[in-house]
């Protein structure tokens, strides 16, 4: 009323009732999720069971954590392909301190909590380094994270002092396969907490707005006084933090830290999850719930293939098709 007496023919009425296609776009990853569930309820025996849900969530855990970090990175207009190596570095740091100790420094193995703290710190450092190289040295994100991806595994091996360290029969490994009350895997609990925290961050904080602004127009962001260097560093550090959760929990679950294979190729699934989730690759709004369902959809494909005894090679094709359909339906005209 008060505004625009001579505004153009804006039909306020039209904007309110949201169109079906828009609903679809907004909740698209969830739509795929539902379709996959329904489809499988018919074709896959034993599909609609608690065990399947549990398997899905436990197996998708590292991908989901990494994808959440990746969502923020992509929202800032960047990309991080070093996530798998950061998982390995984090796991290696924890395992070295927790299992082996550092004999050359006369360091005996330490307790789980300090070891984990160091593991998390190491991953954050890697993220920090990524951010500095990108924002300060102005090297393109894909190259910086490629370097960290390559060098990271070597570094992880040096940290660990060997290729793989076993966590078998340790209380950390027990934690990794812990089921609360004998039913709910501990991973599920962590997912709920982290996702809630991420949603809060994205919906409510200045930080997320600044990240989005940088992703949308870096130059303009600088001119409204956003410290683009530190926000970028913050984003990659956050991604590192989430990688550390992924890396350590996965190591605990499989009870080994093998720096050659921990987190290997996780970046592909994570990127696919973000894409299905609808976060734009040109930067912009981070869509956390989209990524969550995107990750589950990616994982469901693998699980379905396994459960139906379809040769593994087809799951690659299925993933490709799903990502394409997802992106095709949410494309902007």
């Amino acid at each position, binding site marked *: 009323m008060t505004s625009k007496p001579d505004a153009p023919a804006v039909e306020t009425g039209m904007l309110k009732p949201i169109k079906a296609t828009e609903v679809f776009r907004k909740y698209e990853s969830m739509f795929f999720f539902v379709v996959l569930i329904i489809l499988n309820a018919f074709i*896959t025996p034993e599909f609609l069971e608690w065990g399947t849900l549990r398997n899905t969530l436990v197996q998708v855990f590292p991908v989901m954590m990494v994808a959440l970090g990746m969502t923020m990175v992509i929202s800032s207009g960047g990309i991080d392909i070093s996530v798998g190596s950061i998982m390995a570095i984090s796991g290696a740091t924890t395992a070295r301190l927790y299992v082996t100790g550092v004999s050359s420094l006369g360091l005996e193995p330490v307790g789980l909590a300090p070891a984990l703290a160091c593991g998390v710190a190491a991953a954050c450092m890697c993220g920090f380094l990524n951010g500095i190289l990108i924002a300060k040295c102005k090297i393109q994100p894909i190259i910086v994270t490629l370097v960290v991806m390559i060098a990271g595994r070597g570094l992880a091996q040096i940290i660990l002092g060997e290729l793989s360290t076993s966590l078998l029969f340790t209380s950390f490994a027990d934690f990794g396969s812990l089921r609360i009350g004998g039913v709910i895997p501990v991973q599920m609990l962590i997912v709920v907490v982290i996702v809630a925290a991420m949603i809060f961050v994205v919906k409510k904080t200045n930080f997320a707005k600044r990240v989005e602004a940088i992703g949308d127009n870096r130059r303009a962001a600088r001119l409204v006084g956003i410290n683009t260097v530190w926000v970028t560093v913050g984003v990659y550090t956050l991604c590192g933090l989430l990688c550390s959760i992924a890396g350590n929990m996965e190591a605990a679950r499989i009870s080994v830290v093998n720096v050659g294979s921990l987190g290997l190729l996780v970046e592909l699934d994570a990127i696919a999850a973000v894409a299905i989730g609808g976060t734009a690759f040109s930067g912009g709004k981070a869509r956390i719930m989209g990524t969550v369902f995107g990750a589950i959809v990616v994982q469901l494909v693998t699980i379905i293939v*396994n459960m139906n005894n379809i040769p593994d090679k087809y799951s690659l094709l299925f993933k490709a098709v799903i990502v394409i359909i997802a992106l095709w339906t949410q494309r902007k005209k």
Partner: protein
Amino acid sequence: SKGPSDTSDSKSQPDDGKTVEGPRVAYSSVGDPNPWFLAFSAELEKEAEKRGFNFRVTHAQAKVEKQIADVEDIVVQKPDYLVLGPVETKGSADALRIAKKAGVPVIVVNRDIDGIAGEDFVTKIYSDFEWIGEKMCELVHDAFPADAKEIKVVELHGTAGGGNTIGMQKGLRKKMEAYPNMKIVSSQPGNFDRATAMKAMENIIQSGVEFDAVVGHFDEESIGAIQALKADGKKTGSNPAEGEIIVVGNGGTKDGLKAVKAGLYHNIVSVTPYYAGQVFDAIEAHAKGEELPEYIRVDDIVINKENIDEHMASGF
């Protein structure tokens, strides 16, 4: 093992490969991030030092094309011998041709390769994977009472196309013909990797397939299976009568041995990485002009609850 400090020492005084007098041996490793290859490579290096050889190594990161390039780079330096751990039976064969053209004799290790002994290479030395496959089959069979009606087996196999995977698959199936009550109900890739095997096992369990035994192509796969079964509340061990699932595998890793000792892992057929001595024996024999057989078998053994203590230290 060789620590970081060693390397930085040798780096600080750049050498052109002539610091150690004596025959020069280069090793082209598969360079897979698998403890076995590192153990083998370390063995070779130790043995080379002991016998006064000048030793160098390249790691192919499990990529055939990188191995070919590695060998090309190696022969430029004209070593006296090339020890070749083929990434892959067919793909790595061209490395033989390159070495031959440069006049570098080749000793093939780890796995089989396409080529003719005595012509393309001197000899090949590795475990008998077909025998290992047969042995694993036999061990599973013997764990059950002789009158068991049906023994349903899940196989978690290694990377497709690898000589060892092919050998074990072949041996397993060949021997199974002799045991009509045995049957493979599911065969999934574990890719010698614990996480992959564990996921595969979890999904097999969830799909409701029933089984009595698991055969892993490598300890990592067996342990992955044991973990998945444990998380699901199933027991593994040596006593099928009490509902325990029999897990048999190939390997001899530290974790594998630990699991045998803990009674969770029925038997291991070893695949020893400790045969560097045989490799250098072959090199020295060839240098002296002696005739060598086209295949030198590396002997493997069965590790079980009874003999676990004497092998505990040999884990890699």
